[in-house]
């Protein structure tokens, strides 16, 4: 792992999304409160830059006409086809409920009843070190 300082905490707004370049890699850096997340900045579906997307929540439903917003700001919507990615895991989330039938796992509860979609955006570990946001890139990725 190689550590790279990528931003100053103080000048990174809450719910901000930023495209950053580190060691030749493009990352999409996201702040949610005191937490920072980083995804490789390319949508695994069709190649859009995720950093151009929007932070959004998602919606669950108990049936037609029922709308329950949830996971406010924890989903990144791809700027092109609007697929929803969980900023914490990079999972594309799309099938609420099918997890219930597939496996009633702790993850499904923590994930607010949403199931994993078929695509995963690569995540990169991020930490806050004093006043700086730091990403850890594996050496092989830092080409």
């Amino acid at each position: 792992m190689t550590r790279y300082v990528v931003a100053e905490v103080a000048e990174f707004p809450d719910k901000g999304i930023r495209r950053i370049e580190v060691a030749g890699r493009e990352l999409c850096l996201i702040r949610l409160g005191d937490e920072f997340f980083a995804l490789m900045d390319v949508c695994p579906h069709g190649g859009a830059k995720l950093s151009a997307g929007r932070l959004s929540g998602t919606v669950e439903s108990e049936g037609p006409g029922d709308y329950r917003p949830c996971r406010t700001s924890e989903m990144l919507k791809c700027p092109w086809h609007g697929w929803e990615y969980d900023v914490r895991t990079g999972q594309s989330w799309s099938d609420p409920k099918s997890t219930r039938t597939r496996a009633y796992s702790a993850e499904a509860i923590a994930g607010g009843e949403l199931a994993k979609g078929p695509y995963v955006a690569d995540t990169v570990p991020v930490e806050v070190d004093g006043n700086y946001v730091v990403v850890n890139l594996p050496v092989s990725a830092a080409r």
Partner: protein
Amino acid sequence: MSGHLFRIDADFHLPQVAISDLLPYLNEHWRQQLIEREITSSPFRLTSYPPNSPLTLNPAYEGLDVSGALDRFGTGIAIASMLHGVVALHNPDMRAALMSAVNDHVAKAWLDNEPRLRGSIYVSGDDPAASVAEIERLAGDKRFVQVLMLAMQEIHHGNRHYWPIYEACQKHGLALAIHAGGLYRVPPSVSGWPSYQFEDYVMQSMVFENILTGLAGEGVFQKFPDLKVVFLESGFAWLPTTIWRNDKTWRGVRQEVPWLDRKPSEILAGRVFVTLQPCDPPGPDELRQTIKHIGGTDMLLYSSDYPHRQFTGDDPLPEGLSEDALVGILAGNALRAYPRLADDPVVRRAGETLEAPA
């Protein structure tokens, strides 16, 4: 090859009854109205099926009456419908009275006399309350196994307007059957009114594409998870496009219809069925390719579409279906599509040749 298997024919038509023959089923008011206004002499033919059109009459059935047609293909059970023009009336009360009369006529003239026939409760989409009342009136007669509507309505099939009808279907284990043709209040496509009947007919499958998308998108199966829907004379080669496209679109627009908690194709599986005729793929290779793209034959129901012209030669069954698939297509899938057939005496007698319902 498949001659010995029990056949359930999901799309079989009864000849249209003349209005004058409906008089015994009507109350005094409507009898008087029909006679004085000379409505008894109106033909009430639907535009979709002109009586002498080559579409309406299959030469393979030349000279065969209903029972003869059943004998001809070794049909064990035929789910019969009478596509009567009374459904196109605007007067809700006259329409309801005449539709009830058609249903009563079907029971008396056909179901009482031909033990292989099962009936459809024919309803109007315009007036869900009257349609629910009609379903309740006839649901006790187990020979009725489906509720019948036409494809081209004025209000989209997925719309909540119809949900009381769908609720009644689910409650009584009646399949909801949607047959090609329609009310002609809106053109068959957004392109407008075509010049030729040929176009009207080709466009029916496009109407069904929209129906399927609407039933899925509006959440009909979330609301009525046990509802079964059968598309009659819809064609089915269009299914791959509709399945692929809906699954793809759903990923991007899921938040608009969040009740779709799985891919639309997974929601429709086991709930929507389509009849085999007209079989549009021109040969066995194209048919096999279509089935591969749909992902199997679980949705397909055997149909003859008697007396309409959909096939040439001796058997409504197209070439290219595997022996394994035939067991389901000829009867097993129909048992999943029509909940009432599980307890049907003729089906029970046929017993061992049938695949157990899933």
